[in-house]
C-alpha cells in the first residue's frame, strides 16, 4: 500500500519539467547532516538570487524534511537520506527528500499540526506544517516498511533576475 498526500496551495496544472540545473546529495542519517543539507540547499538555490525570506523558508523546509527522514524514517538507525534539488523553468525550485526507512502508516494524521509520536523528546509536531506553509506545494508519498519521499516546490518571486 502506498500513501500519498498532496497539499497544493497554488494549482497551476502539471509541474514544469524544464530542468535548468540539478544537484543530488546522499547523506548518512546522522543529525549533524541536517545543517549540511541546509547549507548545500542554500548555496544551490542562491544562484536564483532569492530574497532572504525565500532562502530562509527553503532552508527551514529542507531542515524539517531531512530531520523527519533521520528521526522518523530511520529512527536514529543508519541509513541514507537522498536529496535532489532541481531548478525548473526560470524560478521554480523542486526539492525531493527521500529515505528508505520505516515509512508512515497514516500520512494524514502525521501531517496534522502539533501531531508527534515523540512528546517525551520535545518534538513540536510542526515539521509538516512548516514545510506546507513555507513552500508552495508539498507531496508526501510513503510505503510502510519501504520509506518516504517528500517533494516540495516553491516558485520564487522577482522575475527580473532569472537563471542564466
Amino acid at each position, binding site marked *: 500500500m502506498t500513501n500519498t498526500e498532496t497539499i497544493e496551495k497554488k494549482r497551476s496544472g502539471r509541474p514544469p519539467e524544464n530542468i535548468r540545473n540539478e544537484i543530488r546529495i546522499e547523506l548518512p542519517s546522522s543529525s549533524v547532516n541536517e*545543517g549540511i543539507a*541546509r547549507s548545500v540547499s*542554500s548555496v544551490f538555490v542562491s544562484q536564483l538570487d532569492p530574497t532572504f*525570506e525565500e532562502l530562509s523558508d527553503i532552508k527551514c523546509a529542507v531542515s524539517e524534511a531531512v*530531520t523527519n527522514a533521520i528521526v522518523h524514517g530511520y529512527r536514529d538507525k543508519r541509513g541514507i537520506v537522498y536529496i535532489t534539488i532541481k531548478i525548473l523553468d526560470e524560478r521554480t525550485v523542486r526539492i525531493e527528500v527521500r529515505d528508505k526507512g520505516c515509512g508512515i502508516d497514516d500520512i494524514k494524521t502525521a501531517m496534522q499540526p502539533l501531531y508527534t509520536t515523540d512528546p517525551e523528546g520535545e518534538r513540536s509536531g510542526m*515539521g509538516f506544517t*512548516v514545510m506546507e506553509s513555507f513552500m508552495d506545494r508539498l507531496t508526501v508519498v510513503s510505503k510502510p516498511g519501504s520509506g518516504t519521499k517528500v517533494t516540495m516546490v516553491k516558485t520564487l518571486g522577482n522575475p527580473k533576475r532569472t537563471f542564466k
Partner: protein
Amino acid sequence: MNSGMRSSKAEAVSTIDGHTMIITLSGDIDHHSAKRIRGQIDSDLFIKRPKRAVLDMSAVEFMDSAGLGLILGRIACAEKIGCRLTLLSPSPQVMKILDLAGAGRFIEIKQK
C-alpha cells in the same frame, strides 16, 4: 547575500541579573543542537532557580520546529520552578515559526 554555507554552532549562555536569568541563545537551533542546548538551559534553571528568565533570541541565526519544541519545553520547565519565561527579540525568520504554532498565546515575546 550570505548564502549560509556554514552551519553555525548553537550555544546557550546564562547570566544572572538580580532575580532574572538572561539566557542568550545563538547559532543554528535544530534537532541536532536542541538536545544539548536543552540540557544546558534546564541545568542552569534548576540550579539557580530564578523568578524570571529571559530567552534572548537576537543572536539565533536559524531555527526550525525543533527550536519551537525547545522553547515550549522550556516554558514548561520554568513553570515547574515557579519561573516566568519571556522571549526577547526573535528574528523575523524565528517569529514566522513561532507564529505558526501561535506561540504568542503561551509566552510573552518582547523586542529590544
